[in-house]
């Protein structure tokens, strides 16, 4: 008995060690791949350059940027600020637009999704319109919002709201519709009235669908804010990209992209945390509804 246990314990230890080794290997390969890409990028954009004429390099850094240049650009922005003010201010502005657009869009999406999901009549009447709106490439609304709401924050928030709304709306709608009929029947038998049925069965069951949509919608909120800024703004990362583009500063565009990537990763981590707090009861996640 003891021997058996020891043997299986040894096996566990062996397995754990193999697992740790594998993780280390993956990590090392990841870093290695990143370094390799950056190094080749740097090398190819520096090799065989004759004097100041960048077109002679193996890859022209004028179009494709250069890791060292991107880094230098980031340092400059951090030290001396950007053309439209300090770097952190740009980041804060974009974040503010993203978060506001996200929150408003999510709230509206949930309300409309739940209401339409509960009412056959409303969803039958409004359905075609919503589908039509959804089929439209909504980014073009950004131009309308810039004209109507000006260069300040509201036009960006509005675009983010529109992008977020539809994702959340469809998930909330589907979530309310997909409530397990047996669960509803069981709740009725156990004594639930319409209100308790809604708060204790329909909403929790729709919640997992809604939360599944939050990952995508946060990304869309960021897209809305950036595109809005790009189309016309006084501040923000989107404007930084537009400015860099205007002065043929490809390093600037890449540097701004890098900042966005970091923001997106942090936001994603936040949503994942939120998800695990809100739906502890679920073994694994429902995949997002694609639209």
């Amino acid at each position, binding site marked *: 008995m003891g021997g058996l246990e020891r043997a299986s314990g040894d096996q566990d230890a062996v397995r754990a060690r193999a697992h740790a080794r594998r993780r280390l290997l993956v990590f090392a390969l990841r870093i290695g791949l990143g370094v390799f890409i950056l190094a080749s990028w740097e090398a190819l954009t520096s090799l065989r350059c004759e004097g100041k004429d960048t077109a002679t390099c193996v890859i022209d850094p004028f179009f494709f940027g250069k890791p060292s240049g991107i880094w230098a650009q980031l340092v400059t922005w951090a030290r001396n600020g950007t053309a439209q003010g300090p770097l952190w201010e740009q980041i804060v502005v974009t974040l503010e637009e993203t978060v506001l657009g996200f929150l408003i869009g999510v709230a509206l999406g949930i309300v409309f999704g739940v209401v339409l999901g509960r009412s056959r009549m409303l969803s039958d009447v409004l359905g075609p319109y919503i589908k039509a709106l959804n089929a439209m490439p909504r980014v073009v609304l950004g131009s309308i919002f810039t004209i109507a709401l000006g260069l300040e924050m509201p036009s960006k928030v509005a675009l983010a709201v529109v992008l977020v709304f539809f994702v959340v709306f469809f998930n909330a709608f589907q979530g309310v519709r997909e409530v397990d009929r047996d669960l509803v029947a069981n709740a009725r038998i*156990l*004594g639930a009235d319409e209100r308790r049925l809604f708060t*204790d069965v329909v909403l929790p069951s729709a919640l997992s669908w809604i939360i599944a949509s939050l990952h995508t919608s946060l990304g869309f909120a960021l897209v809305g804010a950036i595109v809005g800024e790009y189309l016309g703004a006084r501040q923000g990362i989107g404007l930084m990209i537009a400015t860099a583009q205007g002065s043929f500063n490809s390093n600037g565009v890449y540097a701004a992209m890098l900042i966005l990537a970091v923001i997106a990763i942090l936001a994603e981590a936040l949503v994942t945390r939120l998800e695990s707090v809100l739906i502890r009861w679920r073994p694994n996640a429902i995949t997002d509804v694609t639209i």
Partner: protein
Amino acid sequence: MRAGDGTGSVAAIELRGVTKRFVNPAGHAFTALRDLDLTVAPGEFCAIVGPTGCGKSTTLALISGLEPPSRGEVRVLGHPVHGVERSAGYMFQRDAIFPWKNVLDNVAVGPRFRGVGRSDAESRAREWVVRVGLAGFERYYPHQLSGGMRKRVALAQTLINGPRVLLMDEPFSALDVQTRLLMENELLDLWSTTGASVAFVTHDLEEAIALSDRVVVITAGPGTVKGEYRVDIPRPRSIAEVRFEPRFVELYEEIWKDLRDEVLVSYERTKHSVAS
């Protein structure tokens, strides 16, 4: 004593000339039950057996008030059923406990729905959790429990409301044999303290005889009563041993003759509809 011998008292469950039609996906009317008469006396444990698709679940849905009959009358404890029947408890064929509530909250949900305060409901739920043998699992979520444990949760969830009429739809059919024996014994213990009337659907004839006072055989769909058999084996019974009693074997053979014909009819039909 217990089995419905009080002829003067009102039946716990009474279906009279009940017909139930559904509109199937193709848009045709489909008769699931036809002229079904069924009576369960107060305190009686009545098992309902029949081939698959004969309308057993439908019968329970009618008694519970979740579905209205197309024709005929359904009465529970003397009053006609309109809307969901409050004196009924219903264990569904499929798992129907709430995945987002832990064991304790799942059990407490009935009293909560019926207006009992949170702390009251929770202390009652705690007792029931212990009674069905889940002490220590109060904070577990359904996905962290085994199938048998989930059935226990469902049982506690149903019984905590103190139903006078208990409807059970193949509650143990998904369990392994040992767990099933345990659960059946526990059910009989719990039931004997409540005095509820039970309509217990199963496709397992052994289970039906072992548990019940009476076995009702339903015909292949559209369902109607084919035969009724009184199970005159004294209680308390041990589910594991009752199967070896001569009377049990006799009853089994007798009822099986009835049931087998219906199962064959139903089977032939499925084969046909698959072939065509």
